């Protein structure tokens, strides 16, 4: 039995005027012990999906199961085996760090001591502040407390909804190191993020946009499926260069990418074709072959 199965789930929200399709016939399965990433921008449907799996929202159609339990029928059982960390901080702001943790342990009929091993690495970092009210913690500390509370009943599946949004590059790296350690303890983790560069840290990822899965594979598998030649190009006047690239023959797409512009060529063109053209039009331009990353893949999939 797969720990998480999402089977043709559709969810719409309606108001008097509009009907918004948050999830459009989404399906995927998460393997046991896997770190599975849902990667997509705001509005892709990530939170709706997580709330359905967490039994907090009911889908229009389709089926979601956690450890074989149905998200609608068996919601009570699921809540006992699932850890959920919502995107928005949702602990009790006027309880202390320690009180929050004890509260969640008690609700799940356990104690902090019983499962302390699991949270030790994370909780020990905020333990010096255990008498502080949760509302007075900094962003990074809140995040660690929320993760501790989500783990205190030793769930078999952990759902993390955008745990690194708005967090700086250093703290983001630290958070992913924590996730790696949790994975080693056998917990299945489903995590969502809008940061494409975090995709590489997952075992498998689903790229989502407008409620649909654009692609689902290992990060390397997704990168390998990028078939067009990709070049990195730069010159002294990047804005002018970009305009020229966009109208050049054989160019499918061109966009800024860090200090270079990335150029996606049509399949029957190669680097030399573009070099010949640019040498004439933009002398001094540097052109190298580039490896696509997840962001290139995402943009390519969005276009098609």
């Amino acid at each position, binding site marked *: 039995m797969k720990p998480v199965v999402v089977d043709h789930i559709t969810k719409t929200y309606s108001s008097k005027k509009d009907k918004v399709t948050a999830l459009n016939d989404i399906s995927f399965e998460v393997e046991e012990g896997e770190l599975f990433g849902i990667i997509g*921008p705001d509005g892709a449907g990530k939170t709706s999906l997580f709330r359905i799996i967490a039994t907090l929202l009911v889908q229009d159609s389709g089926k979601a199961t956690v450890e074989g339990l149905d998200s609608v029928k068996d919601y009570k059982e699921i809540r006992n085996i699932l850890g959920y960390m919502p995107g928005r901080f949702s602990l009790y702001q006027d309880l202390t760090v320690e009180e929050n943790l004890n509260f969640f342990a008690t609700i799940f009929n356990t104690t902090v001591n019983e499962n302390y091993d699991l949270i030790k690495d994370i909780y020990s970092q905020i333990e010096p502040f255990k008498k502080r009210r949760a509302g007075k913690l900094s*962003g990074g500390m809140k995040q660690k407390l929320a993760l501790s509370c989500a783990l205190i009943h030793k769930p078999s599946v952990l759902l993390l909804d955008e745990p690194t949004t708005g967090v*700086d*590059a*250093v703290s983001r790296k630290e958070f992913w190191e924590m996730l790696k350690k949790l994975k080693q303890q056998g917990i299945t983790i489903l995590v969502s993020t809008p940061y494409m560069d975090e995709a590489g840290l997952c075992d498998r990822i689903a790229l989502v946009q407008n409620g649909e899965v654009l692609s689902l594979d290992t990060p390397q598998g997704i990168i390998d499926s990028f078939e067009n030649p990709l070049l990195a190009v730069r010159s002294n006047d990047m804005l002018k260069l970009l305009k020229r690239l966009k109208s050049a023959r054989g160019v499918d797409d061109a966009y800024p990418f860090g*200090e270079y512009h990335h150029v996606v060529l049509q399949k029957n063109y190669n680097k030399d074709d573009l070099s010949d053209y640019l040498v004439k039009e933009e002398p001094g331009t540097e052109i190298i072959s580039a490896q696509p990353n997840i962001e290139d893949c995402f943009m390519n999939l*969005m276009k098609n």
Partner: protein
Amino acid sequence: MSNENVISVDGLTKRFGHFVAVDHISFDVKRGEIFGFLGANGAGKTTAMRMLCGLSLPTEGKATVAGFDVYTQNEQIKKNIGYMSQKFSLYENLTVKENIRFYAGIYGKSDQFIRQKTEKVLEQLHLTNEADKLVGSLPLGWKQKLAFSVAIFHEPGIVFLDEPTGGVDPVTRREFWNMIYEAAANGITIFVTTHYMDEAEYCGRVSIMVDGRIEALDTPSMLKQQFDAASMDQVFLKLARKAERSDN
């Protein structure tokens, strides 16, 4: 880009009790420059930015923004800058057109100016058909592009952008930067913060704050050379890992 300084900061400091949020920072920004203002959470970016926007008085040091003094002329500063952030930019329950009129009105623009420019801006954004829709019903990427146009609608000399592209899809993120480049080419100075390190590469110069101080300031390529790093991400990590205080 000209040689004229539109932001000039010298020893700017802000203390809250014993805590030194911003610790003697100094830098200049030239007209039409795209200046990236980076730092880890808690490094003091927001406090520094609030002082430059005329929203918070410094404890010591000097700064002028658009030629106005941050101590004595903060009202003039507010009139001559634009501001947009990821968290707060537009009123969701006003329409596209109403938002534009509201902001332009606050800056004292004439009805005629607003009418003519609204049309132009909506056309550029391909939002002419959405002019009477509530902003809350637009996709995030459109909202952010609209918010940027609104922030520079009154034609300020400088625009402050506080994490303008957080959570935005990669295609829209690039369209957004395209708008930034165009605004800069038209002489608007851009002062921008971001957590996306690839965006740091799009800036003319970048400063990196650590523990309230500016620890590095140069063009992206010089910073990479200085710190022997392949990317701005590595430069940032090398500097920010040294931080003693953080948001964590």
